[in-house]
């Protein structure tokens, strides 16, 4: 499990990094925390001839909060998020979700940019980004483009990123104060990739009805996605046990997971419904009669 032969460069500026990627065409690969890429190299599932380490690039390590949103530099780590005490207030859904990512050592190195670019279908950050309509800034030789998270991810472990582009930041829209939300996931061991997960939020209008429902799911398809059918069940309704059960049924219908060695498809489908029930009950602060 040694890495294939490769060169390593560690540019000091974004421009240099992009230039290096462009020179090597498809043979160069960005490395950030290395927590997904290095295992792939060790298994020789990826064999780039050059690694371009973006770890020393300036200005990609901060979390900043402004009127426009919450900006995460691509090199922000899971540990940075955990330690940033502002986030529990300004984006509790994100903070709750990121608590589930991986184990200590990995949390110290893994980055939000790496996670988005890797686009694992069960990863939390892409799930939150899609659920919350995050905007991603991508810089390449021809300049900068900004994409919404669901446009960025194009399939299992695939994104719109070109070989010579770097994802530099992720912007989450500001969080409304009285927003109802919950994150639920289920993994065989804490820190493992989830068998399924749900990120949910909605706002409440003056009549006590839900609007602006966002329901995002991970682990049940080739990529994270929102479930508009479920959101439609919630919008305009008072969130009670009935509505929650309807939403869960809609969620089960909306997904078509695949069998794999960890779980049969039917399990993930049902699990998603259970997680959504639990998430919505917590968001609405009601207790559901337990079915079993």
């Amino acid at each position, binding site marked *: 499990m040694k*890495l294939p*032969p490769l060169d390593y460069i560690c540019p000091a500026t974004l421009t240099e990094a992009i230039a290096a990627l462009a020179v090597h065409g498809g043979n160069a690969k960005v490395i950030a925390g290395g927590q997904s890429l290095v295992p792939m190299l060790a*298994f020789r599932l990826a064999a780039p001839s050059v690694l371009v380490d973006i770890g020393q690039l300036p200005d990609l390590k901060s979390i900043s909060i402004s009127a426009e949103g919450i900006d995460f530099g691509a090199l922000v780590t899971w540990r940075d998020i955990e330690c940033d005490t502002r986030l529990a207030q300004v984006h509790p859904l994100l903070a709750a979700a990121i608590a589930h990512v991986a184990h200590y050592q990995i949390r110290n190195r893994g980055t939000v940019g790496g996670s988005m670019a890797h686009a694992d279908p069960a990863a939390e950050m892409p799930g939150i980004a899609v659920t919350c309509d995050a905007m991603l800034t991508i810089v390449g030789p021809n300049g900068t483009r900004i994409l919404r998270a669901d446009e960025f991810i194009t399939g299992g472990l695939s994104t719109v990123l070109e070989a010579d582009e770097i994802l530099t930041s992720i912007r989450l829209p500001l969080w409304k104060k009285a927003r109802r939300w919950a994150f639920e996931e*289920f993994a065989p061991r804490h820190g493992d990739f989830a068998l399924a997960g749900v990120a949910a939020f909605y706002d409440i209008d003056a009549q006590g009805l839900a609007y602006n429902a966002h329901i995002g799911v991970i682990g049940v398809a080739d990529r994270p996605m929102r479930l508009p059918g479920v959101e439609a069940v919630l919008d305009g309704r008072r969130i009670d046990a009935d509505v929650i059960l309807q939403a869960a049924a809609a969620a089960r219908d909306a997904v078509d997971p695949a069998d794999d*060695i960890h779980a049969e498809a039917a399990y993930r489908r049902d699990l998603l419904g259970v997680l959504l029930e639990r998430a919505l009950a917590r968001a609405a602060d009601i207790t559901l009669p*337990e079915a*079993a």
Partner: protein
Amino acid sequence: MSDAAKLLVGSAVERMEDARFLSGSGNFADDLAVEGMLHAAILRSPIAHARIVAIDVSAALAMPGIRSVITARDIGDAIPIIPLRLAPLPEFEPFCQPVIASDKVRYVGEPIAVVVAESRALAEDALETIGIEFESLSAVTERGASETPLFDFAEDNVALRYDAGFGDPDAAFASADYVRTERFSVQRHTALPMETRGLLAEWNSLAGRLVVTGATKVTFYNRRALARMLDLGQDDIDLIEIDVGGGFGVRGEFYPEDFLIPFAARKLARPVKWIEDRREHLMAINHSRDVACELSLACRSDGMILGLRGRVFADMGAYIRTNGGVVPAKAAQFLPGPYRIPNVSVSVEAFMTSKTPVGTYRGPGRFEANFFRERLIDMAAMDLGIDVAEFRRKNLITEQELPYPIDGLVPYEGPTSYDTGDYVEVFERALKEIGWHEKRHLQGKLIDGLRHGIGLGCFVESGGAGPKENAALTLEKDGSLTVAVGSSVLGQGLETVLGQIASDTLSIPLDRIRVLHGSTTLLDEGFGTYHSRAVVMGGSAVLDAATRLRERISEQASNHLGRPNSELRIVNASVVADNGASVSFATLAAGGELQADGTFSNDVRTYSYGTHAAHVTVDPRTGAVKVLDYVAVEDVGRAINPAIVHGQAIGAIVQGLGGVFLDHLIYDDQGQLLNASLADYLVPTASDFPVLRAVTLELRPSPSNPLGAKGAGEGGIVAVAAATANAVAAALAPLNVEIRHLPLTPPRLWRLIKDARERATNAA
């Protein structure tokens, strides 16, 4: 003669090894580096079953830094076969593994070529260029797939069948009020020691000698095997044991690499190192468990067991390795467990498949047998309307019935009897510890969405395999003591334990004792570490040597001090006479060599025993199980170091819970191993099962050895599946779910619950 006030045997002294390990100064195989060392990587079969038509290594040989590519052709016409170490039955011989594939491969991971290069990375680069033309054959992945024999000489894929038993089971079953038959299975998994295997082989061509470092477990046996294969004298080979990061049965057996790496070193006359990476570990090291059983119990209506019948089916993988049929044989032998069952019949079928070969893993066969039997006991008790604890109490062998013969369950083994113990008392203790009476009302209850269950599992566990162990003690010139023993250290704290034994006898403080172990350079013969034998056998040999050395020291002191032996006492590494004169050990050692050999021979096995109890919750909607409380109570006869025994027990429980919930080597129908990485092969981590308790008792010492010790390394694992699965089954009993097959992953439990619901709906 020594100072009784400060005896170390029986006290929880800190492990001598810990400072070394915790400060990172252990010396493991991958720490080895010598001048001129080359690195090996092994090309392993990517397909399960195929004929090898051609191998092209020319591109690999042309790459920079590649020193050699070894295939079967380089080894010669007769490819050495790895011998059966345990129970060498003739039936198994034709199924033994050649050290390298020549004409056929039979499992994914089977060695085909060895690349030796200036670095491991270069060697791996070269592996990718080796071209192999295969003619692929159908994979055999389950029992009864006999249309594709894996071995040309065989008509089907069954390597061995036998029947064994005692009493008259037919009559017992015919006369019983109640009979129940069930099928159970335990999935294929493995031990996963933290340190993968690793070897450094050094050939001295002038002397014609070979030194292999990184050996362990059964080094003397392995030396004999290697000598035969390399056509060397035994004395031309040293196998050196250094620190070992876990064995659990799988590590240290003779594997293909134990030949291939020394062969490469001799061929190239250069030191060659090989470190098994985790991916190859999961497909190369022995797999284990993978046993199914059809089990029947015959009882009277009052719950008295009259008879037991068990048919054991074991997937042995592609070859029979060194452990022969130990896994299925023990799975059959331990089916009756600690119960009075007068009529027993067992049968064993060991069949071959295109998977990695199977060997022993901590509690081999016992983990499985206890799971099968204890599950069926719960089912029977429920059917008969008898409390599961009462059912066991009624059938446990009582102290008056010991020794209790269990002869004839392994046809090729001699008579054996459960030795000593109070099975009932230990059982009651486990009930008390788990709070059985207080918590019984929770069985199956749904509280806050979680169903509660409490389960029990009783066991007996053999240890202390013979025939013999040796030790040699030397009093060094500085008065310190060197202990050399034929037992192997695999990280279990044996250095400390043997040091304690020597320290008490000789009154030398532990920090003045150095324990050397395992290496073939230390003694003429050693027997190694398996079957929980290192303390029973090695400890007793050290005790024997220490007693002899003490006599020699006394003799010398008597000469030195001019006082008779009867007036001498040994105190704190000196000999003191009644008249107050004294001489230190160092002074005595300076006067002439003080050395003693010790040995312990014994073929009588020890039987530790105990009960495990588990309290779990199951989330019936997700299938998630939480272990709320777990207690393992075991009588080990004598705990030389209670802290070490406790650590062994807790570690074993965690490992066992892994086997219940997580560990699973998954193959597809092409014989591909689907989860050869720790991302997909899940094992418990330190935080997964926080609430575990172990109670070690010393009620009845073993009569078969002077220490009174019984095996203590495996009792923590052998009843984990039994107790835990019973707890899960109790939790889900109201949903009409039965537990018959491991592992209990959330998706599998969810499926059982769903199917039971659908059955109920259809019936309604």
